[in-house]
Each structure stands twice: as structure tokens, then as C-alpha cells.
């Protein structure tokens, strides 16, 4: 009987040992699952959302400030009015962020001439789309006031209109040739015309109005006819090789009107700080941007 008693005790002890081991393993596994789930929540970063909101607000504030700062002409911008608007905006935004324990500041920066890149800066995206899904373009004009800031034939700047399949419907190539602006306009398969703006010209090209420096061109650019009946996009190629302005308006395929222009670019620097982190962002803003 003594032999049997020893076996029973051993089995019971073994059973308890296995039971305790299972409890320990379960608790450890549970901790691992819990910790990994808590870690996954850290990927939901609200600071990115707040920064995006601050950038959007500042962009709209710059566009509004610009509208109050132009005295009838886009070349005559009142910097004092522009800065005063941004200062008032910054003060009010600081109060709003202060409620949530954040510090907000905004340095407006200076207005500068814009390149034909996506964000208007020289190092911005070279090839980009101005507007897509266009039904009709009511007005489209560009201006290249300083020929020295236009590249030569090896780096032609192109305005290209493409349909939804990517086929070119209409294009305009511009390059600097001994101080003159040489322009070649082409349709889907053939050249429509060659034009030149001499050094004495203002460099204003009214594409939909078929005018250069307020004078009719011959032959016409034929922009409207070549794009009629298509759902098309207007693209810029090699935008960093020219400084200038553009304005465009019309209707999208959805029936929604659009209107935008760029005469200047400004780079406000915004900063949002908490006790732990500080985020600084410099955001290029095209002015006037969307026109209401």
C-alpha cells in the first residue's frame, strides 16, 4: 500500500504543477495580446490630423488675406494689409489652440514670383496637372514677363491638354531663343502654328482669346475647337524652367465651375507646440489660388 500512496502523491503534485504552469502561460499570453493591441492604437495619430487642419486654415487665411491686399491689380499688393490679416488670424488661432494646451504661431513670409511647378517653387513638381476632368474652358491665359527666366530649346516648357485616355489633344511648347519666346502650338497630329514674342513684348499669352500681348494671332491657337466634346486635363511639363503667372476658368465634366490663378507664391511657416513635441511646417501657397 505504501507504494500506491507514493504514486498518488506524485501524480497529484504533477497535476498541480501542470495546472500552475498553464495559469502562468495563460496570463503571459494574455499580457502579450493586450500589449500588442494597445500598441496598435498608437498608430492612430491625431497630431497629423491637427497639422493638416492647421495647414488648410493657414492656406485659406493667406488666400483671403491676398484678396484684401490687392488694389485692383495683382501686381499691386499691399504687404501691410496682407501681414495685418495674417497677424489677426495668428492671434485668434493661437487662442483656439491655447484652449487645448497647444502653442500656435505663423510667420507669413514674403510674396515671391512663382514657377510653373505644382507648388510654385523652383524645386516643386515639374510635371503636374492644373485642372482635370474639364468640359469647357472659358478663359486660359499665361504670362511670362521675364524671358531670362525661361529655359532654352533643350528644356522646353509645355502646356499639354490630354483626354482621359492620355492622348494629346492640344499642346503649346515655349522656349527661350536669344531673348525671344518661341512658341509652337500643335494639335493631335500636326502643328497648328509657330509664334514669337520679341524681347520688347510683355509675354502675355491669351490662349482661349487667341492673343499675344493683346494682339490677335494668326493662325488661331484653336484651343476651344480642339478640346470641344472631350473630357480633358490641362498639364504642365517642365514647369521649373519658367517663372510666370496663369489664370484659368471654366466648367468641369460634373457641371461644377472652376476658377483658379497664380500670380504669386507665399511660404508661411506654421509651428504647433505641446510640452512633448514641436511641429514646424513651411507651406507654399499659390495666390490668389481658387477664385471665388
Amino acid at each position: 500500500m505504501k507504494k500506491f500512496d507514493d504514486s498518488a502523491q506524485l501524480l497529484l503534485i504533477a497535476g498541480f504543477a501542470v495546472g500552475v504552469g498553464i495559469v502562468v502561460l495563460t496570463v503571459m499570453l494574455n499580457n502579450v495580446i493586450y500589449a500588442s493591441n494597445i500598441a496598435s492604437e498608437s498608430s492612430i495619430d491625431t497630431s497629423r490630423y491637427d497639422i493638416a487642419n492647421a495647414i488648410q486654415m493657414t492656406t485659406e487665411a493667406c488666400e483671403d488675406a491676398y484678396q484684401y491686399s490687392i488694389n485692383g491689380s495683382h501686381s499691386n499688393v499691399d504687404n501691410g494689409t496682407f501681414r495685418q490679416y495674417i497677424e489677426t488670424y495668428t492671434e485668434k488661432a493661437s487662442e483656439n489652440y491655447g484652449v487645448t494646451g497647444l502653442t500656435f504661431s505663423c510667420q507669413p513670409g514674403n510674396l515671391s514670383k512663382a514657377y510653373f511647378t505644382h507648388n510654385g517653387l523652383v524645386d516643386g513638381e515639374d510635371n503636374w496637372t492644373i485642372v482635370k476632368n474639364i468640359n469647357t474652358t472659358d478663359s486660359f491665359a499665361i504670362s511670362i514677363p521675364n524671358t531670362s527666366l525661361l529655359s532654352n530649346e533643350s528644356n522646353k516648357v509645355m502646356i499639354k491638354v490630354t483626354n482621359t485616355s492620355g492622348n494629346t489633344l492640344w499642346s503649346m511648347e515655349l522656349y527661350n531663343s536669344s531673348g525671344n519666346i518661341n512658341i509652337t502650338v500643335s494639335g493631335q497630329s500636326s502643328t497648328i502654328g509657330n509664334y514669337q514674342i520679341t524681347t520688347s513684348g510683355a509675354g502675355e499669352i491669351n490662349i482661349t482669346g487667341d492673343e499675344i500681348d493683346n494682339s490677335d494671332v494668326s493662325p488661331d491657337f484653336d484651343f476651344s475647337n480642339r478640346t470641344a466634346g472631350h473630357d480633358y486635363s490641362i498639364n504642365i511639363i517642365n514647369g521649373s524652367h519658367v517663372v510666370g503667372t496663369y489664370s484659368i476658368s471654366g466648367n468641369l465634366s460634373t457641371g461644377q465651375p472652376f476658377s483658379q490663378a497664380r500670380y504669386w507664391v507665399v511660404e508661411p511657416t506654421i509651428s504647433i507646440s505641446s510640452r512633448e513635441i514641436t511641429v514646424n511646417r513651411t507651406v507654399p501657397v499659390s495666390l490668389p489660388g481658387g477664385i471665388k
Partner: protein
Amino acid sequence: MPDKAKSGLKTDPSAQMHTLEAVIAAMIMVGIIIFAVQATSLTPLTSSTANAHIEAQLQTMGQDMLSALSYSSYGQDSQLKEDIMNWDGKEYVWNGSTYRSTNNQNKTTLNSSFTDILTQIAVPRGIAHNVHFSWVADNGIVMDKSYIYNGDPSDNAVMISKKVVLSDTDVGNTSDFIAATSIPDADSSTGFYNIVNVKMTLWRM
């Protein structure tokens, strides 16, 4: 009967004991496993209205809704800004079919981009929601007014906010806008009007 067979029969009782011990040990182990699993398996993935994952989901959903509303294309005002500018200052409640003014004397209904997106996203999922507009008054105090109010939120509610800049040209007639909404012109000497903080609260019923 041979002696060997006799001794085998003699040991039969110990085999039964071993079997019984094994069964009891197995029952103890299974019991411990069941106890341990039941006692410790409350993870954030456990189905409950009170867990962090649902809050995170509501947070993301709310951010997406406000981001969609605040998108503006090619010079158009965002839908969020239009909703603020068109607000008549009244408080509205979801009555099961529409957003109706809580003022019993004047039972107007609200049709805005905000109500469209809430009807499409929050209502079908059974997500209760409040929307408030707040701004900082001249004395630095935060003022708050209900746009949509469906009751007090639960402890697990999430709040998502988006700030919207208004200029004088956005508002139009500033005195009418102030009379309706109480949102003041922060600086009458410039074209800047004010910043409105749109605060949306979401919670599971």
C-alpha cells in the same frame, strides 16, 4: 491457476486507483484552464461598447467625415464652411427621419451637407452624435453653441474637431450673421472674421 496469474489479479486494484487519479488530475487541469481563460481573457478585442478599438474606429470615422466636408476644390467654399455660413443659430435633433429644430414654436428642419453625411454614415450604424460650434470670444472665453444635439454622450464617446477660418466676404452681412449665430467679428479693422471650431461627438448607444 499459476502463481504469476494470481499475482496479476492481485495488482488490479492499483490500476483502478491509477485510472481514477488520472481522471481526477485531468479534471483539475481542465478546470484550471477554464478558470484561467474566463478570468483573464478581457482584451481590447473583446466585444464590448467599452473598448478602445471602437473608440479608435469612431475617431477615424469622425475625422474622415470632417475631412470630406472640409474639402474645397478650385476656389469653391468647403461644404463645412457653407454649413456654418448658412446656420440659422438654432439647435436641431434627429427625430428618426429628419433633423428637426428643438424649438417647439418653430419646427423647422435642417438640410445641410453635415446632415447628409451623418444620415449616410452615422445614423445607419446606430452611432449617436452631437455637433457643436465653438469660438473664442473677445475676453478669451470659449463660447459654445449646439448645432445638432441628441443628448448627453456616454463615457466612451469620442470628440473630433476641425477649425474653419471665416472672412468677412464669406459671411456677407456680418450683423445678420451675428444676430443669428452669436459668432462675433474678431477684428472689424481687417477682412478677417473669426475661427469656428466644429466639434463632433460620436458614441455607441
